[in-house]
């Protein structure tokens, strides 16, 4: 339903107040919300039209590549036209909330496992089995954390755009200069090595982490640190918090972070650093250790990135188990798309197969392109054996290390429809704990209370 229909509906009395509210409400209280309000001027959202216009919304990464992929698809499938929109990653969630609530025409969009439950519960996304059962048949070739990240109430909601892990990265040159031969394998070792590097004047703050309150990755970084320890869990199987138990992995992680801030080995700017600033800072050689998405190793080692290009290596997450967070970002089918003409739905199938499925029988060239050109990980197990992929990965990383990290990766815990709200609360609560404004116990208790109250509904 388009905005015009909504408003027309209520003024003629056909549409109930509630229906109108659902549609028109939550529009733009802020920048991201406003940016989201794309109208149906150009794209045809009304059912029954013969034009096949698919509206595809993404966050702004690799936009030129996406546009090129779209061009290739349109050349291949006649009659299909893709309207493309992109928004900044840090605003993406809020932007899409406004879009969906206003029923601004959106057919396919990026999704992340953080928000799947929330968006599915709101009725904005539709499970694949509804209109695209064939796309539902690839799950046997996905890693477990990929399947988990795209499943809500037992149903699969997406095709992986890419799937990756959070990796512990370090500057090899810094270590060499400090006379350290091996990267740290425990957090205590990390502290020790950092102190050495700092003492030698190689880096003022050897560690930097992306803990900005507005970056969705910040919760993933913290979670990966928790996972790396023994009993590294946030919730039990019934989704009750276990992180607030005394001596929990979460408590140890918070203590390490606040300790690192106090002893000045962790850059205090971490609290306001999003992903890109962290990447830029690492590239300039200001820091030695960080935790970033794996594809950023490709970015860091790209030629021309800075004085240390090629010198960034990956090691397993320090700790006991070396587990880390694996996440999946995927193409989601909106509820709106499933309600359109069957001819449009068919075009949707072409689109999804091309971008993330198996058009012409083999794994999508788009997936492979992201891997080879940008170093993005993928959800397909079998693609790891592809020679081109291995070759491309070895120019910036160690394919075996990458594979190992994939196997050590686990999906985030607690992915429910209230996880995003809990996430917002938790990010700021964690910062208070890092800054020692509240004690670790108090912060974890607050986080548990918040979770329980959200769960009760």
């Amino acid at each position, binding site marked *: 339903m388009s905005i015009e229909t909504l408003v027309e509906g209520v003024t003629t009395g056909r549409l109930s107040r509630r229906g109108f509210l659902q549609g028109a409400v939550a*529009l733009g209280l802020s920048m991201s919300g406003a940016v989201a309000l794309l109208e149906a001027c150009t794209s045809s959202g009304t059912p029954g039209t013969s034009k096949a216009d698919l509206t595809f919304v993404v966050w*702004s990464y690799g936009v030129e590549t996406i546009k090129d992929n779209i061009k290739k698809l349109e050349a291949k499938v006649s009659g299909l036209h893709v309207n493309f929109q992109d928004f900044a990653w840090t605003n993406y969630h809020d932007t899409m909330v406004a879009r969906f609530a206003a029923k601004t025409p959106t057919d396919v969009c990026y999704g992340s496992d953080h928000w799947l439950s929330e968006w599915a519960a709101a009725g904005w996304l539709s499970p694949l089995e509804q209109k695209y059962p064939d796309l539902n048949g690839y799950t046997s070739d996905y890693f477990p954390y990929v399947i988990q990240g795209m499943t809500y109430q037992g149903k699969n909601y997406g095709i992986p755009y890419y799937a990756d892990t959070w990796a512990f990265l370090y500057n090899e040159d810094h270590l060499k200069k400090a006379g350290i031969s091996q990267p740290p394998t425990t957090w205590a070792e990390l502290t020790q090595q950092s102190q050495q590097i700092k003492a030698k004047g190689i880096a003022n703050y050897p560690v930097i982490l992306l803990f900005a309150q507005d970056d969705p990755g910040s919760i993933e970084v913290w979670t990966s640190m928790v996972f790396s320890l023994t009993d590294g869990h946030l919730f039990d199987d019934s989704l009750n918090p276990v992180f607030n138990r005394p001596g929990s992995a979460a408590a140890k992680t918070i203590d390490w972070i606040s300790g690192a801030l106090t002893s000045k080995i962790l850059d205090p700017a971490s609290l306001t650093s999003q992903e890109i600033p962290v990447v830029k800072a690492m590239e300039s050689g200001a820091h030695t250790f960080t935790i970033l998405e794996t594809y950023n190793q490709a970015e860091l080692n790209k030629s021309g990135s800075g004085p240390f290009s090629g010198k960034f290596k990956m090691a397993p997450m320090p700790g006991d188990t070396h587990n880390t967070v694996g996440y999946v970002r995927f193409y989601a089918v909106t509820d709106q798309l499933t309600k359109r003409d069957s001819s449009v739905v068919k075009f949707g199938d072409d689109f999804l197969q091309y971008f993330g499925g198996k058009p012409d029988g083999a794994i999508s060239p788009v997936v492979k392109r992201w891997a080879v050109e940008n170093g993005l990980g993928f959800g397909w197990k079998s693609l790891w054996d592809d020679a081109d992929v291995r070759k491309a990965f070895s120019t910036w990383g160690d394919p075996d290390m990458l594979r190992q990290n994939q196997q050590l990766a686990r999906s985030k815990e607690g992915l429910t429809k209230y996880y995003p709200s809990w996430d917002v609360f938790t990010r700021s609560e964690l910062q208070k704990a890092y800054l020692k404004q509240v004690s670790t116990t108090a912060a974890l208790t607050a986080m548990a209370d918040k979770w329980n109250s959200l769960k009760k509904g």
Partner: protein
Amino acid sequence: MSAHIGSRAFWRQAGLWAATAVMLLFILGPILWMLDSSFQGENELLTRPSHVVPQQPTIANFDYIFTGTVPQGQNVRGTLRSRISQEAREIPAALENSAIIALVVALVNVALGALAAYTFARVKFRGKSLVFNFLLGTRLLPAIAVAIPYYAIVSALGLLDSYLGLILVYLTFSLPFTIWFLRDYIMSLPIDIEEAAQIDGCGRLQLFTRIVLPLAAPGLAAAGAFAFMLSYNEFLFALLLTQTIGSQTLPVILSSVATNPDASLALIATSVVLAMVPPLIFAIAFQRFLTRGLVAALGKS
């Protein structure tokens, strides 16, 4: 006033200049740094300490915005993560949108606002206080509370993503202040001329156009300038009610470029510099009018 070195007058002058210098540093410092940064490449901007004098000056950033030529080479390209902010290239178009919308709002404000203000100032009619207070009262609700409904109204009128939609909304914001301000201003004008003209048989409208408008010129200029600036700077509703570069205004594009971490710092600086050009022109042209108009309104009520 001649100032001998050491005299009280001299120290006073010195003190004034010192205070002015500090103030100018605070006001212009950030702006000058943006200007400085727009001629540096990304990598150079990340150095510690910062280079006040660019060591590898370049105009590649400006070149990109106007011609789309992607900066080459390590120093300028720096760390553009697989995407250069395409939005930066929309700044010139956004500048145009902003200027046009703001100009129309200013003109309509002066025309409708002056007419209404004259009525409030000189005409006695029933319900005058009520209407006047209503007009002022409409400005009480903060933007947050009205954002959603405003969207619904503009959408219902089919004016999303159009100049007219934004113009209407900005008129809503600016008219109350304009009317209030001009009412006070007109009330401060000497009444005798009008009374004389009335006796001569001049009608209300003629009084307004022939006598009051010319007299009120400085006040009108000030009111117009305020309305212009209010529209030019407005951000929230511009963001809400526009979707494509056909009508997106400068604050929208600029914030989009700058809050997108994928955009390089150098491009952000360049965008900010370009955004400052119209205000600079405005500041030079209107600084005299503003204070004069204000003085008149404030001093005579």
